[in-house]
């Protein structure tokens, strides 16, 4: 039984493999106490090996030392983890886009190997955090924000890349009388534009696998499809947010 744990900035995921097949998955919010959250995530699991990924990958070692000191623990970066996870679901994948809570990664891959990747640096522009923050301005839960934005029909341009400035921009657009659904659509568009540039820098290949929690947002998905056009095939796994944890577990088999 191999466990992959992905500790991100917003949530942590666990995927358990048996004979190379995922048999169990679970997610919890990271909170300010990731150690206890991770302990709860592993409740009832007796793994033979554990692989950590995500920003909290080093934490996984700490927790395992306490819970299962005999169990071998290693770490991989989320880049490699997402590539392995994406290829597990779609062996034909040539590119991966992951939009998580605090960062966005774009990579080109071949035969499961990462050729080139890009990540946003220290700023959370164009990430799940951006959506969460701006959804808050509309007083809408982030899970419903995408569906809400899809009701818009004419998106005003949102040019601010900074999350805080984007809020200011959205507020002034409201004052100008733009419909809130349209402003929401504009905010989604700004993410997709940014993402498109990042994909361009790694040399966008098709098919592209879209992973991470933001892949569940129907508006981002629909705008991204439009942006990429007919030439690029966009694939989304059933549980896009589990990709990192799955890939981490799979890396133990390689």
């Amino acid at each position: 039984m191999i466990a992959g744990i992905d500790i991100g900035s917003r949530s942590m995921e666990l995927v358990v493999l048996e004979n190379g097949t995922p048999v169990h998955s679970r997610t919890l919010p990271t909170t300010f106490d990731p150690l206890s959250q991770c302990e709860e995530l592993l409740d009832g699991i007796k793994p033979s090996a554990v692989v950590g990924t995500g920003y909290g990958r080093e934490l996984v070692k700490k927790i395992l030392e306490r819970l299962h000191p005999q169990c071998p623990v290693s770490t991989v970066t989320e880049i490699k983890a997402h590539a392995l996870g994406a290829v597990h679901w779609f062996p034909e994948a040539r590119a991966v886009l992951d939009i998580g809570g605090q960062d966005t990664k774009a990579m080109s891959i071949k035969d499961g190997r990462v050729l080139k990747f890009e990540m946003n640096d220290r700023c959370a522009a164009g990430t799940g955090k951006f959506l969460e923050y701006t959804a808050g301005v509309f007083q809408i839960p982030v899970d419903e924000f995408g569906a809400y934005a899809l009701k818009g029909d004419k998106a005003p341009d949102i040019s601010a890349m900074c999350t805080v400035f984007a809020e200011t921009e959205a507020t002034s657009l409201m004052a100008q009388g733009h419909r809130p659904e349209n402003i929401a659509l504009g905010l989604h568009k700004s993410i997709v534009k940014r993402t498109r540039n990042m994909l361009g820098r790694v040399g966008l290949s098709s098919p592209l696998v879209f992973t991470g929690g933001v892949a569940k947002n129907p508006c981002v998905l629909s705008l991204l499809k439009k942006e990429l056009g007919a030439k690029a095939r966009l694939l989304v796994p059933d549980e896009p947010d589990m990709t990192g944890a799955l890939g981490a577990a799979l890396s133990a088999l390689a």
Partner: protein
Amino acid sequence: MTQQTYRKMWETLDLDLDAHDGLLEVLGKFYGDIYLSQQGRLAGAEYLDFVLSEIHGLRILELREAQAAGRKIVGTFCVFVPEEITIAADAIQVGLCAGAEAGTEQAEQIIPRNTCALIKSFVGFKMAKICPFTESCDIVIGETTCDGKKKAYEAFNELTPTYVMEVPQTKSKAALELWKSEIRRYIAKIEEVTGNTITAEKLKHGIEIANAKRRVLQRLTKLRAASPAPISGRDALLINQISFYDDPERFTTKMNELCDELETRIAGGQGVVDKNTPRLLLSGCPMAVPNWKLPYVTESAGAVIVGEESCIGTRNFRDLVDESGTTLDEMIDALAERYMQIDCACFTPNTERLENVTALAKDMRADGVIHYSLLFCQPYSHEAMKVDKALQDQGIPMISIETDYSMEDVEQLKTRIEAFVETLE
């Protein structure tokens, strides 16, 4: 030498003693974590440790004593300032502190916020009064390599006497002539500052000393091509950094000893890392003392750095000055030609840099290249894209990193560098 002697000296230099104590404490901790923790270092690294531990002590004392004996101290921030001439005028040239976050708030009062960390740092060090090198200078020589520096020297001149050399922006014939005249102008200036006349004989001596320093750094580079890597990238970077402020003749002697030791190591198949460790070349902006962030993150991610394509690296020593000249005019021509070979990103076009990076990556048997640009450094950020393409054409992977001196992005850097190293394995 006792701490009291140093404190008195720092007081005389009008340093902000509390802030300076804070700086030394941080520097000491940094050095301990990043350098002294390394396994299997060379015996020759003792010299590095000693120089660094005395960076604001013994070396400053030497400079003060030289000054008391009538010699002048010249501070610089760029490899374009010809040390040969400074030496010929019997002055001492030192590279000034520009590699740590210091006095940022003060600096931002006289230069824009979106200025690169290196410029902010040298202005900040001056304004916060924590760099004994800066405070010891009789004159600072600036240059027009980029707009940020060019304008910052105007502000810097208000704080301390600053003389600016005009570095051309192209490699045309006219540009070479301009640079020759700038060298002559610098000769006149340094003669005025020191009261010494530069003769052919003195300049020949200056050229020999500077070339000897370059030769030993070239020797070190050649030795680093060995696998397994015989010296860590961190130590090699430190050597390059020290080359800017230690006495050049002592430096050359010590480094030749260190290279002898490296040769023995290589002959015995010894290295600081395993043979299979991914080898990386750093390329881009200079890393001034104590900017060790990226090399530390890189070598902690399971890779080893085998070269620095930067001003505090190969750009400083790749080309020698032709030593065949006998008259002052011939030597000035040779100097100008040597300096105009520098492939600084301030030149347009600068295609030779693309060839040089690719060739160096191959010579050093690098598995990949980390291109490093300081945030807000236009010239190197532009070239990052060109270098990426040139390396890609040769099948050499590259990652582009843009960062500054703050520690806030260390975790993100770790992830990127580790992921890059994973792709090479």
